[in-house]
């Protein structure tokens, strides 16, 4: 009787563990893809910001760069440059009007534009972006996915993946519209 109870308890534990493990995998992201961590992005040298188009210059103090690397510390062949809008508004009166910010750029190791994200990263009020990158070729992720957590009434959505077009040397999205619901994993 005691043995049966112990066996039942172990089975139950294994089932719960398996369920939690599976749910965790689903919550964490996509197999083979890394999630961009905004805490690992660093301020971009103002000299480089000034080399970008004029719409960026005003926000030079709030522009950060996020390396797209497979391992920390590796030299990045591609990066994402974005305005940290919340930090910008942190320096302004609370009733400051929303401005038209430049969309985040995907740049190569010479800071040349090779793509663009569809919304501000990491936050485009009231939405927050999760960016995943993977499918590596020659040190470049060939696919970048953008999932959007949207607290407003329409709910979460995602965009078609940005796929690396090696002939053109740019990341391209098949269709630019929002796709509501959750991306298949």
């Amino acid at each position, binding site marked *: 009787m005691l043995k049966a109870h112990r066996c039942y308890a172990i089975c139950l534990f294994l089932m719960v563990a398996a369920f939690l493990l599976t749910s965790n995998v689903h919550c964490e992201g996509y197999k083979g893809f890394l999630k961009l961590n905004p805490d690992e992005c660093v301020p971009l040298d103002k000299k480089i910001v000034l080399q970008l188009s004029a719409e960026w210059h005003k926000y030079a103090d709030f522009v950060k760069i996020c390396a797209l690397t497979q391992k920390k510390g590796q030299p990045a062949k591609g990066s994402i440059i974005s305005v940290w809008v919340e930090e910008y508004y942190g320096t302004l009166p609370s*009733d400051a009007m*929303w401005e038209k910010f430049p969309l985040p750029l995907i740049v190569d190791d010479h800071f040349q534009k090779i793509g663009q994200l569809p919304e501000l990263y990491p936050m485009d*009020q*009231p939405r927050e972006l999760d960016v995943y990158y993977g499918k590596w070729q020659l040190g470049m992720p060939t696919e970048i996915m953008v999932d959007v957590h949207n*607290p407003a*009434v*329409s709910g979460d959505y995602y965009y078609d993946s940005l796929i690396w077009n090696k002939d053109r040397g740019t990341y391209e999205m098949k269709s630019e519209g929002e796709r509501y619901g959750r991306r298949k994993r």
Partner: protein
Amino acid sequence: MADENGKVEKLKRACGHAFVIYGHSCSHAVWYVISQYEPSQKWMAANDLITNLSTSPKWKPVDQRELSMLASQGVLIVGGLNKVPAHGHVLVVYPGPQKSAGGYNAKDDAGKIYKVQPRGSYPLAMSTSSGGWPGARSYGDKTVWDSWGKDTEFKKVRFWKYVGSGTAGGNV
């Protein structure tokens, strides 16, 4: 502007009751307001209501530029955007001059409070929601933009004014 025949007061009162009674269901809140004008109106989920409004002779499409002016004359206007297969959202245009969207606090994913920066100028809204987004809860203090919180999404929202049978019973 004088409130001839108490139309504006009627609309405000209906919105106020709807906001209090049905604070967590946009379709019920909007249904309550409509039923003050059209007692035979049956409750419908937001997606179905939008389909109903877009096909009923008792409702006519109205341009976004006219919303504030018409609502301030006491005209009942319902706005909405359907979402398939998910739930759409509906609201009532609240009387009063346009104001900036945003300007209220919200919480981000990590629970940190931030200010939704003000932007643009939009008509006021009576809106309720089962979700936690503060932009979708308005008793004339937020705008028709705030429920959706995104320009490209708001562009898809459609509005209809109540014209009733076209003779008696309508409000225009």
